[in-house]
């Protein structure tokens, strides 16, 4: 047992919100243990971030914490687990609902009622609460989460961010002392993601709810955490404070470290910062000793917010051209302008990150480019052809063997181009998230990898959802390879750090209009929400990456 856990669990078991003792678990039919010898104690009111790569056991741990393991998923379980003092072996998920709430990654499958009000009322009704108590509980949780205006809405009309808030509200409506969340921000834009994290922190502080939050984008949630638990191959690799976690991650798992921690570690600055505010305070304290003026990043663009004019890219061939593009969609209650007079030009070989809030029009723009939606006015064209990978790579995988999806030399060439080396007999649904992504892209590119057939434009719609940093690195390599072959690569993403690693240009959409279009360092160092962590810490125009940050900080010292 980790010493920190051992100390915490000794003598305080009765009041624990969640406790695992030597928990081991293996899914039915699996030869590999999803959880092994997990011992963990969570006290009431703690805010815990659960870190770890894809497949490290985070989701299994959360499922065990709410009783879905073993009651729903079956499999073999060993050891003991107690939630609010109740054993998960003796009580099912429904019986544990008043002591633990659970929010899964995909909000679509977590909503079972027609309206938001009915969805919030459902657990209370199942519990047999009086209508007056139910009405008050629904009203209070809606107010606490800022969603009273959503109560009469049908769930099919909600955006991803709204759905995730509703799912959180449902988990909280029974006022459980513990809530478990499995990557709840993976489908949210930076604004909605930050709002959700701080909402959790507020609930934690004001209601005293213990929070266990599994996340990949740790830079977003570490500042809110009291403690970090890192999972590694089904075991607890680390359990301690966020600052100690960063030191451990830099020494053992650099892919889990936050950009500002990497930046400080690379510049030999101590202590490691837990978030932007902390980093700024450390730098301010360090600078207050000297009287020299702060340096300025020399690669800064002359003027912030400078847009890319067509002249700056003259001479290269056009891969995507949109002129006064208007696209109207009808969600069911009348047509809505989703794209409003977009003018955009992307040149061959460019790597463009398409960013913006949920509902800003990113997916619609890519779908219009692929001819899946007709504009109501203006035009859009991709003269060199387009390969589009839509948001769910699983939609491309319809057969039971990789070899049946892609056969022959052209298929093998496509697999080689995306760097996927798996047996043709494997079932596509058994591949990891990153492998599925690559296979889907290979399917979209098959037969388009040679000479004239190479598409002028390759578009990926939010491919980094649920990916850890290692998988995102593979995707960056792939984008670089495609752009090296002359294709323009446009990736719609909410992940600012991924955009820093991949893009040389950023187009920011807001309410169907282009609100910023410039070189990546200009856009991602010129704002707050759509800015990298390095940019937010150092606030130097044009400085966005960890490497630049290290160089800047070293130069300062």
């Amino acid at each position, binding site marked *: 047992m980790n010493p920190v856990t051992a100390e915490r669990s000794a003598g305080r078991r009765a009041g624990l919100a969640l406790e695992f003792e030597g928990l081991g678990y293996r899914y039915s039919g699996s030869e590999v243990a999803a959880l092994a010898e997990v011992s963990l104690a969570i006290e009431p009111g703690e805010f815990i971030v659960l870190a770890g790569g894809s497949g490290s056991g985070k989701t299994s741990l959360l499922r065990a914490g*709410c009783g*879905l393991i073993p*009651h729903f998923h079956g499999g073999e379980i060993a050891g003991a687990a107690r939630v609010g003092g109740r054993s998960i072996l003796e009580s*099912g*998920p*429904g*019986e544990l*609902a008043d002591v633990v709430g659970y929010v*899964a990654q*995909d909000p679509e*499958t*977590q*909503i*079972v009622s*027609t*309206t938001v009000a*009915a969805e919030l009322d459902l*657990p209370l*009704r*199942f*519990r*047999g609460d*009086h209508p007056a108590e139910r009405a008050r509980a629904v009203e209070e949780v809606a107010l606490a989460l800022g969603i009273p205006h959503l109560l*009469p809405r*049908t769930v*099919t009309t909600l955006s991803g961010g709204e759905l995730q808030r509703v799912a959180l509200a449902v988990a909280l409506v029974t006022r459980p002392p513990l809530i478990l969340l499995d990557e709840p921000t993976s489908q949210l834009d930076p604004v909605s993601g930050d709002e959700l994290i701080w909402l959790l922190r507020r609930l934690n502080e004001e209601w005293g709810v213990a929070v266990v939050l599994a996340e990949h984008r740790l830079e977003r949630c570490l500042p809110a955490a009291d403690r970090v638990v890192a999972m590694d191959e089904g075991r607890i690799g680390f359990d301690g404070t966020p600052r100690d976690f960063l030191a451990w991650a830099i020494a053992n798992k650099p892919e889990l470290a936050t950009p500002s921690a990497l930046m400080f570690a690379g510049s030999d600055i101590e202590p490691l910062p837990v978030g932007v505010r902390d980093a700024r305070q450390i730098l301010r304290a360090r600078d207050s000793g000297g009287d020299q003026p702060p340096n300025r990043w020399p690669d800064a663009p002359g003027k912030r917010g400078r847009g890319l004019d067509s002249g700056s890219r003259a001479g290269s061939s056009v891969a995507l051209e949109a002129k006064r593009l208007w696209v109207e*969609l009808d*969600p*069911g*209650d009348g047509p*809505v302008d*989703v794209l409003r007079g977009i003018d955009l030009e992307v040149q061959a070989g460019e790597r463009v990150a398409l960013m913006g809030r949920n*509902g800003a029009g990113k997916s*619609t723009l890519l*779908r219009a480019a*692929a001819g*899946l939606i007709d504009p109501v006015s203006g035009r859009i064209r991709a003269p060199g052809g387009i*390969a*589009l990978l*839509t948001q*769910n790579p*699983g*939609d*491309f*995988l*319809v*057969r039971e063997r990789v070899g049946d*999806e*892609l*056969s*022959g030399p*052209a*298929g093998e060439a*496509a697999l080689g181009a995306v760097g996927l080396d798996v047996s043709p007999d494997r079932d596509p*649904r058994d591949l990891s998230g990153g492998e599925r992504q690559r296979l*889907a892209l290979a399917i*979209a590119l*098959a*037969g*388009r990898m040679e000479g004239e057939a190479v598409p002028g434009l390759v578009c990926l719609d939010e491919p980094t959802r649920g990916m850890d940093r290692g998988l995102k690195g593979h995707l960056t390599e792939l984008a670089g390879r495609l752009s090296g072959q002359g294709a323009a690569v446009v990736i719609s993403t909410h992940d600012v750090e991924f955009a820093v690693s991949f893009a040389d240009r950023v187009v920011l959409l807001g309410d169907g209009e282009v609100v910023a279009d410039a070189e990546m360092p200009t856009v991602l160092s010129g704002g707050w929400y759509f800015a990298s962590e390095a940019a937010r810490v150092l606030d130097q125009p044009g400085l966005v990456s960890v490497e630049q940050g290290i160089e800047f900080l070293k130069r300062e010292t």
Partner: protein
Amino acid sequence: MKKLSPIAFVPRRETVQSASLAPVALYLGAYLLVCFFSSDPLVLVFATAGAALAGYGCGAGRAVNFSLKLGAFLALTMVIVNALVTSRGATVLARLGDWPLLGQVEVTAEAIAAGMLIGLRVIGTMVVIGVWSACVDPDRILQAVHGIARRSALTATLISRLVPLAATDYARIGEAAELRGPAASPVSRGAMVHRLLAGSLDRAVDVAATLELRGYGLSAESTRFRPAPSRFDRRFWIGGLLLTLLAFFELLAGSGRFVTYPGISYPVGAEGPLAALTFLLCGFVTWRRGGRGVRR
């Protein structure tokens, strides 16, 4: 952006949506009964118009229009098919000679009239179902069923959630099939349906897990807390009872009033038009004046 089906339930503060389930079921059930079983074209037309009026009155105009269009298409198909496959009837309008499978085809006025009668039933039934679907909250139906038959309610919950998701999934898989590269193996409809079913099973597991987490398996819920009655219940009880009695009377008394074979016969008495007019006027039960309180 998600697109709502025209007959999908949309919460509104209208009469049908606000009233309790039982009186609304009685009221719309009476329309369904008469539209499905009546043999009187006048009654069918007026009952359909009444159901449409009921839909317009509670904000389900889009569902009514959709149902009318779909019903009209199906009705036209019925008329054509019945005219071609049925050679009964004394009034031959056209002799179309020998057709493969059908043999000697004669189009008779009686067969067309019989087809139109079936078509009228289809249109009326579609309109009633459209109004029900757009105005009655499925959650309330599930709540009602849950107390009586828990497993059926679970199945209904899964279906009500998974059908729209499956429709969305199928559209996305279809789009992905269009986006496949030229050297990727082409996707047949069979493969798409297979993939959809596999995906739906995965989703069903997720939805079932969600229900489990909400406490679906608990036995606490009982009928001791009934939903609060609505101020609109009385009008639906009265209208529903009147229509139900009338529907049974019409089915008993009106059968055989309109005869198609061997010749068309439709003696018009007083009771048919009277019943038809009642069905039409009862459509206004869903209507209400204004909606705002009067300031004194």
